[in-house]
């Protein structure tokens, strides 16, 4: 299979374009034909949207198709599906599950969400309390999940649930696909401090999940979930952020436009943030170069910590800089945004939303522990819950 050359790949792309000219094919038809031609994600196996080729070759395919007039593929439509569900299904799913789920996932016909975090299991994800109890060929799932983006649009969810409370926490978990339209699934918007509701709470009340929707063995859920989380993609596509882009660009723009707001103290603080932003931008640029050349480095782990610190300092400074105008807020209504757009909102929103940057996707404290233990090799903290049956751990 891997004897395919780039030239042959090019022929495949040309054949697709000849059979389905982008200008006279609907976008959805084109995507379907593209998937069936193995040009969706070339590193996936043949028959599942790929050709078993190096992942980097996808960039070439994307460029050829776009040059011929095809609409760029919209990763944003199904971020959890593409970034987390698909690689997990590919690695742990049965052939039937792969055939059932991957095509509509990639086509964006079925949106996915993630049912991992719970009110009682945030940083300590392995403590999840949502129970799945076996009932013949079906599991009955009951519990509460939180911080679920896209749940209101989703057809399916990846779900982590406890199937055995009598063993230590990591051993009693099982990983499922949950149909979000099944009876007993209740999705409620979760309003945040910004006023909007990006996320949801999901209440599960005796939800039936067929055993055929289990990913991996019973009790293997933690290993499968780790594979999912390790697939959290570092965004390496697109143009690197420019020096005048991002939040620093917005604040510097305000500084230039409003000379009456300037003080010496604010000036030095702004320049400290400018320096931090530029250092962060160059770190990201170096990370892209490392990934492109296959050299590993700690940049991936450190970027998120740096980003949170930067956006929080800068958004706080911006409100002080604007003075009285910084106390006006643009919109407290419970909007349901599809993507977080710092720059499309006002300074109050930026300040409040940036607080989430050090919490979502792993708190800064957890990340520091991960960096200290995995990158620096420092010893782990003693833990009391590791060998205790889950039901006996204090909570």
């Amino acid at each position, binding site marked *: 299979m891997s004897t395919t050359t780039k030239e042959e790949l090019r022929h495949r792309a040309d054949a697709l374009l000849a059979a389905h000219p982008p200008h006279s094919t609907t976008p959805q038809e084109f995507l379907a034909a593209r998937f069936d031609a193995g040009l969706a994600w070339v590193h996936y196996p043949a028959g599942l949207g790929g050709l078993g080729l190096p992942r980097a070759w996808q960039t070439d395919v994307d460029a050829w198709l776009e040059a011929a007039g095809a609409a760029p593929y919209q990763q944003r439509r199904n971020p959890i599906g593409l970034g987390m569900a698909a690689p997990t299904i590919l690695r742990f799913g049965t052939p039937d599950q792969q055939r059932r789920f991957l095509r509509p996932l990639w086509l964006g016909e079925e949106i996915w969400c993630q049912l991992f975090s719970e009110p009682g299991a945030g940083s300590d994800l392995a403590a999840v309390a949502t129970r799945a109890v076996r009932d013949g060929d079906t599991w009955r799932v009951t519990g509460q999940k939180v911080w679920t983006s896209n749940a209101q649009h989703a057809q399916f969810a990846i779900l982590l649930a406890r199937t055995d409370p009598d063993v230590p926490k990591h051993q009693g978990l099982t990983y499922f696909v949950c149909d979000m339209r099944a009876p007993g699934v209740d999705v409620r918007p979760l309003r945040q401090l910004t006023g909007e509701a990006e996320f949801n709470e999901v209440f599960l009340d005796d939800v039936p999940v067929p055993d055929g929707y289990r990913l991996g063995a019973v009790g293997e859920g933690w290993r499968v979930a780790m594979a999912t989380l390790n697939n959290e993609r570092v965004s390496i596509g697109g143009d690197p952020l420019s*020096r005048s882009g991002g939040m620093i660009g917005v604040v*510097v723009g305000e*500084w*230039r436009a409003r*000379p009456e707001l*300037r*003080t*010496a103290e*604010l*000036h*030095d603080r*702004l*320049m*400290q943030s*400018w*320096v*931090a932003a*530029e*250092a*962060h931008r*160059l*770190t990201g*640029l*170096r990370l892209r*170069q*490392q990934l492109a*050349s296959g*050299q590993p*480095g*700690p*940049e991936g782990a*450190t970027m998120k*910590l*740096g980003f949170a610190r930067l956006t929080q300092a800068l958004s706080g400074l911006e409100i002080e800089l604007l003075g009285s105008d910084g106390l006006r807020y643009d919109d407290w209504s419970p909007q349901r945004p599809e993507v977080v757009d710092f720059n499309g909102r006002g300074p109050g929103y930026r300040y409040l939303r940036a607080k989430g940057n050090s919490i979502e996707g792993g708190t800064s*404290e957890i*990340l*520091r*522990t991960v*960096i*200290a*233990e995995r*990158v*620096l*090799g*420092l*010893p*782990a*903290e*003693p833990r009391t819950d590791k060998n205790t049956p889950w039901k006996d751990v204090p909570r």
Partner: protein
Amino acid sequence: MTDLLYNDTEIALRDSVRAMLDKRLTAADIMALYDAPYPRPAQLGAALSDELGVSALLVPESAGGHGTRAREAAVVLEELGRRVAPVPFLTSAVVATRCLTAVGDMAWLPRLAGGEATAALCVPLVAYASTWSATVRPERAGLVGEVRGVADAATGVLIVPVRTDDAVHLHAVDPGADGVSVTPVLSLDMSRPLADVAFDGVQSRPIRSGVEAQRAVDDALTAGAALLASEQLGLAEWCLDTTVKHLRDRYQFGRPLGSFQALKHRLADLLVDITASRAVARYAADCLATNSDDTAVAASLAQAYCATVAVRAAEECIQLLGGIGMTWEHPAHLYLKRAKADQLAFGTPALHRTRLAELVDVPAAC
């Protein structure tokens, strides 16, 4: 497209410099400089020049050097910083060499390239591009004036900025010449010792005058600021590595210190900053190597960022080593002294932020 990685040549050079320093330099050699500072041993610098040719990295090919190999020079500086090596590489092979190159000197550069001579730009170590001023004046008897706090001034030829009413001139002066006195001072960082240089009727002729001379000094100080960041990066890395090792090895309360979250989180934060320092330092070196339009910004960014990170790394090292960090016996203090001195060298972070504000159009308050 700027390249922020290390290529194979640079990695090989790093290995060679590291091997030589491992063989020829101990912490005790550096500590000895604090008790018996003068004269400084010149063997290590000579070996770096003779065996590895590092003093020729920034000398133009026409003068017997390698051209503008700023990226390689930066790698050498990372290793020198990692060992706080007491050699005049930054002052002579970077700053003075850039200055002489900018004025098209052919008298001294071949000797610098071959390692037969070293040179020092006769300005205070804290001077930085575009705001330095010449304090030496030509009078009837010759050059007159004093320059305080010059780094590595005792051994090589002095490149002296001289001010007349309407222009700056550059003179090359032998420190042994009549009327020149070079008075070493006890310095916070004795691994890069300072001296006060006085001129009292020194006979000399300018090697260049006017705008070119002025620009040559600016260019040299910009290069110094840009590449000092790599020294600061290497220094900070040693401090982090040393602290990590200590926290792994030392037990208190029946646990390795490194298992305490309060300590490990501090080192994780430091790694974040050192990782960013590497990107910033590589960018500055690459700008210098490619003669980028962004070099002035990159150099000021490098000092605004990397200087602070190096000081923090050294201060964290002293604190987290506990009592041993306060002793003369442990080498950590050598790094703290170099880091703090480096923070002022070629302009403090605050001065560079002010400079950056001008360069990137973030106007100051009126």
